[in-house]
């Protein structure tokens, strides 16, 4: 009994201390709450509260202008994995216009419905579609392929099914050892179609089309599906981009670099708090130097560390992942300086606002993680069609602009002054200036009121 009483005494003391430790509370309660809120909110927006995938943009140019092509576009609009652009009310785009979108990286997939599509379909044939695409966008390619199969099936009301299967069996060569695979694939496709078609909400049968391989056959369902609808693909990618570089890989490297830089530079900015806590700031303030030179000194220090950190990380990324990091050194330098300036400003703002180093660490950790999540440093949130309100929140984070800049450089091979990248550079410097001016104002106000 005494054992338990003494244990409770110690636990009660610890609970009391924990309740009074604001940093502990911040990390233990507020940080998880902030992250759960951000992630839960995003998941709900991106995945529609239970849908299998988010929608990716598919630009379309309809050269056929037939009833069948209109039906195809309507079926694509009903698909769960793509958002057809332009919208039904908007002005249709020409082939050249959608091609330009893929070329300038404002679109990754553009579908062209060629003239004669409707006629051939009515004749029971398999009219070929054309797709202009960025080959680095592999995830989106799968989403678009799924939507196309679904749409094609819907508009042909099953008439194209034998032709589609025949096409695939022909491709497979109808060898006996592959017969079983074809049967398994047929079953899987059927299950998939039933699921996607209106009213097809039932759960897929066991061993159905959920995975990339039909159970027990080693059959590659993704490849099979992609080949069912005849599509002539035209790949467009910037000449300098390494062939193996995927969008997600570039996103991951950039995202981690941006997030870790923020952690590093906030720590640098908080040396101002360390100086205050240790008393060395008093000596600096009593020295015959301008107050601003102290703040600028911290800025220069953070900027130097940031540039060293970024250079090392990108050099390492180049060695490991072949990102073609130094293809355009001027753009790399401009983006590194812009990001470093913005993050340094953010770090200084946290440092002058926080009363203690612990407080700075707590607040900055929450802000960095939430900004990284919302800004796309963890996963490519910008790929999804998010509501306007979420887009506004994303654009308020400096991580969003940093990711935009680095993705434009690494993946889209754009220069710093390209119209797609320049806004990111300008916004990052805007962040930097605003944060530094705010930090300076608070710093001077604090100095005027307390030693």
């Amino acid at each position, binding site marked *: 009994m005494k054992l338990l009483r003494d244990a409770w005494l110690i636990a009660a003391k610890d609970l009391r201390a924990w309740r009074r430790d604001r940093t502990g509370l911040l990390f233990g309660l507020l940080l998880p709450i902030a992250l759960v809120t951000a992630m839960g909110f995003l998941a709900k927006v991106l995945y529609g509260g239970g849908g299998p995938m988010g929608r990716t943009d598919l630009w379309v140019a309809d050269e056929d202008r037939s009833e069948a092509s209109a039906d195809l576009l309507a079926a694509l609009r009903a698909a769960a994995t793509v958002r057809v652009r332009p919208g039904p009310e908007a002005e249709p785009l020409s082939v050249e216009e959608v091609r330009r979108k893929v070329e300038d990286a404002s679109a990754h997939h553009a579908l062209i419905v060629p003239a004669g599509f409707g006629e051939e379909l009515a004749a029971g044939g398999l009219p070929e579609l054309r797709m202009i695409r960025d080959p680095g966008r592999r995830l989106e390619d799968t989403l678009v392929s799924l939507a196309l199969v679904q749409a094609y099936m819907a508009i042909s009301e099953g008439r194209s099914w034998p032709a589609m299967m025949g096409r695939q069996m022909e491709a497979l060569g109808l060898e006996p050892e592959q017969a079983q695979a074809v049967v398994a694939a047929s079953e899987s496709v059927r299950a998939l179609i039933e699921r996607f078609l209106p009213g097809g909400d039932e759960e897929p049968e066991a061993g159905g089309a959920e995975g990339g391989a039909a159970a027990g056959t080693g059959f590659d369902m993704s490849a099979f599906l992609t080949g069912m609808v005849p599509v002539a693909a035209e790949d467009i990618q910037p000449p300098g981009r390494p062939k193996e570089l995927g969008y997600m890989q570039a996103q991951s490297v950039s995202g981690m670099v941006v997030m870790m830089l923020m952690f590093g530079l906030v720590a640098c900015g908080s040396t101002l708090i360390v100086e205050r806590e*240790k*008393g*060395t700031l*008093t*000596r*600096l*303030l*009593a*020295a*015959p*130097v*301008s107050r601003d030179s102290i703040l600028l000194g911290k800025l220069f220090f953070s900027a130097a560390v940031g540039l060293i950190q970024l250079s090392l990380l990108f050099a390492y990324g180049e060695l490991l992942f072949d990102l073609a990091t130094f293809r355009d050194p001027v753009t790399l330098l401009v983006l590194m300086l812009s990001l470093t300036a913005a993050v340094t400003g953010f770090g200084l703002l946290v440092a002058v606002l926080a009363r203690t180093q612990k407080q700075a660490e707590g607040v900055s950790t929450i802000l960095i993680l939430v900004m990284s999540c919302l800004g796309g440093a963890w996963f490519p949130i910008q790929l999804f069609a998010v509501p306007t309100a979420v887009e506004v929140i994303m654009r308020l984070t400096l991580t969003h602009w940093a990711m935009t800049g680095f993705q434009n450089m690494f993946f889209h091979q754009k220069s710093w002054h390209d119209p797609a990248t320049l806004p990111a550079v300008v916004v990052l410097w805007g962040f930097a200036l605003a944060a530094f001016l705010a930090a300076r104002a608070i710093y001077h106000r604090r*100095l*005027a*009121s*307390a*030693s």
Partner: protein
Amino acid sequence: MAADFQLEVEDLRFRYGSREAVAGVSFAVRPGEIFGFLGPNGAGKTTAISCVCGLLGGWQGAMRFGGETFRPDLRAADRRRIGLVPQDLAVYEELSGRENLLFFGRLVGLAGAELTAAVERALELTGLGERADDRVGSYSGGMKRRLNLAAGDLHRPSLLILDEPTVGVDPQSRNHIFAALERLRDQGRTLLYTTHYMEEAERLCDRIAVLDRGRLIGLGAAAELAEQAGVPGADLEQVFLRLTGHRLRDSA
């Protein structure tokens, strides 16, 4: 003609919000003297010193240095006339003693041979020469205190302000600091010294100002203060308690 006083402070007032921390304090420090600042916790000593050092702005009153208007909160050149030895150990533990002194020397405008000479002189004054290139983090508390003193006096300021420079040091280091300060006095240097230790004030200070609740309640040599307090011949501790009372000031 040389000014009679190195530093003159007239009717100095400073408020933290609604609380008046310094309420009309006037005093003057003569050239070549060690001027003591005594007072219980919350008396306003540190606030007054912070105003003199330029750490605080927005004060009221007037300050003159060598007869000229003195605004250390606004003018960096005025701050150069002051050397501060803060109560905190305001040195960088990651750097060596010499690196600290070189940094603070450059900060006050020293360079080249003048800087090197100043650093060597400061190391000699504080007896840190042998450990000058070791990281300060490996120093004892007393050594850090001495380095703290050395860093404040590098540019031989016209007025060296020491805020409780012997807090938490062993008797050996304290004696070393006393000896260093007495050497500075012998060189004709002017010092403003705050302390809680009465025997330090009696030993070192030519004149002492006693502050309480933001007001100056006594000023003069130790014997003069005893007269003012109505306890002639009493030691400084008795005088201090007589002037400031026995009530605890923890909540001040």
